């Protein structure tokens, strides 16, 4: 579904990513893991068009994403959430999700100005759809509340609903459980399974191993800007290179 090949990103002389290649299959949950600073978020920024790659290409459903603006990539069917939540705090929950439906609202300027039937119908449908998406993450009761007043975990869920509103076929989640307690993590894991169960592809970044192992069907491991392993959770868990990256190497001479 999403093919990343030979991807590299340099900031001046600093190579953050070097020759990264892997493929996110259609459907299911794919995980990209790695220690802090391994370049995981940079991969997302390159996929969503916020950064331009130095080398290599990203293609989505066979179509190259080179040179596209972030909003164009979103409209092709890729949505994302952020590690540090970026909801629209001064807007209501409903408005937040309706912003995500922007591309789906097709009325013209005349219909808008004259408040024609086509405008009202489209807006009413968008509101219905937004409420439905909010109900997916169980926030529909608070639709008219300001997003700023939500708890941290609920803000994360709102960000999910907003991303789903853009009508993606692939959803990128950047450290979805960062800063959450175990109970919240379990609840969110359930939420992500639900989303995948509805037919959305999920590609997530995480460094909580327990979370990733329990959720993902395939995993790629990134360390110092390079992919060091890829496979099923079982394969990755037993890979000596991965163990070394996470736990360090055993010294030759025992004390």
């Amino acid at each position, binding site marked *: 579904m999403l093919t990343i090949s030979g991807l590299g990103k340099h900031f001046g002389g600093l190579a953050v990513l070097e020759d990264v290649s892997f493929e996110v299959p259609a459907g299911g949950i794919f995980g990209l893991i790695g220690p802090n600073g391994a370049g995981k978020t940079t991969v997302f920024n390159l996929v969503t068009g*916020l950064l331009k790659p130095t080398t290599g290409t990203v293609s989505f459903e066979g179509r190259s994403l080179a040179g596209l603006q*972030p909003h164009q990539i979103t409209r092709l069917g890729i949505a994302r959430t952020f590690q540090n939540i970026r909801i629209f705090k001064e*807007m209501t929950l409903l408005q937040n999700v309706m*912003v995500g439906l*922007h591309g789906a609202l097709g009325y013209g300027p005349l219909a*808008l100005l004259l*408040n024609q039937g086509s405008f009202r119908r489209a*807006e009413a449908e968008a509101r219905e759809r937004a409420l439905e998406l909010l109900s997916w993450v169980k926030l529909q009761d608070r639709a008219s509340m*300001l997003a700023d007043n939500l708890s941290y975990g609920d803000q994360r869920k709102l960000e999910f609903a907003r991303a789903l509103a853009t009508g993606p076929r692939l959803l990128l989640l950047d450290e979805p459980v960062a800063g959450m307690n175990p109970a919240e993590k379990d609840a969110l894991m359930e939420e992500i399974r639900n989303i995948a169960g509805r037919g959305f592809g999920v590609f997530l970044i995480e460094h909580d191993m327990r979370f990733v192992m329990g959720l993902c069907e395939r995993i790629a491991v990134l360390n110092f800007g390079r992919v060091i392993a890829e496979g099923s959770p079982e394969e990755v868990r037993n890979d000596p290179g991965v163990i070394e990256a996470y736990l360090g190497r055993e010294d030759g001479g025992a004390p």
Partner: protein
Amino acid sequence: MEWLANFWATYSTLVYSVGVFALMALSIWLTLACGLLSLANAAFMCIGAYVSALLSLHAGWPFGATLAAAGAAPALVALVIGMPTLRLSGVYLAMATLAFGEVVRIVVLNLEVTGGPEGLNGIPQSTTGWHILAILAVVVYGLLRLQRSRVGRAFEAIREDEVAASLMGINVARHKLFAFVLGAVIAGLAGGLNAHYTFFISPREYGFENAVDILTMVVLGGIGGLAGPMLGAAIITLLPELLRSLHEFRGIVNGLILVLVVLFLPKGIWDPRRLRALFGLGPGRDPGC
């Protein structure tokens, strides 16, 4: 009835000014609503005023046509300067648009056709209160419709977080340009109306101080809705007149009032959310927050 006639004879210009500056405040509100701090609107007003005045004086165009030109000319200019400058944000955009405003002022000051520093004299007084009211009504209606559509939501999203907005499928650059150009149209119309009731225009009226005055109106009134900018325009226009008896202390009191409002009402006088919370209507602030 006689006092009304007297009142009107004395103060009609002031009432017109309130209307025209309400338009100016709305024009800058539009760019602020999209997160753009632009100080170019006084210059757009200047372009609108001069274009329409020159067409009235030298080409003999009917008033309606000169007004249309007053809206169109600054829109074209905004389109050309908007494309490169709207890549800037925050204070950098303010600097660039400020420089643009100065360029316009200096060009007008030095051209022959604009009458240089002496300005233009004898512009036909075609503007009536109805003209101002009608244009203000159309602008308010248009902005209200815009605010309640996907465009209004996109503006708000861009103001809060540009990156997140672009990842919601919103073409950020195009929305910003649209807000900037539409703001220029409104400012140009205000300029055209202004030129046709003051009889005389000169470059002095559209300088830096004017740009800041207009911005102050919106900050004072509040950017939460359309009522705020208009209220701010009325206050800033009327305040110097109301304080006339204070003579030379007028400027000081004027400034003091502004400082107090900004200190104690940071979201402006007209803040729908605070007003709703105050009167216990609908979703205001959460209790305890």
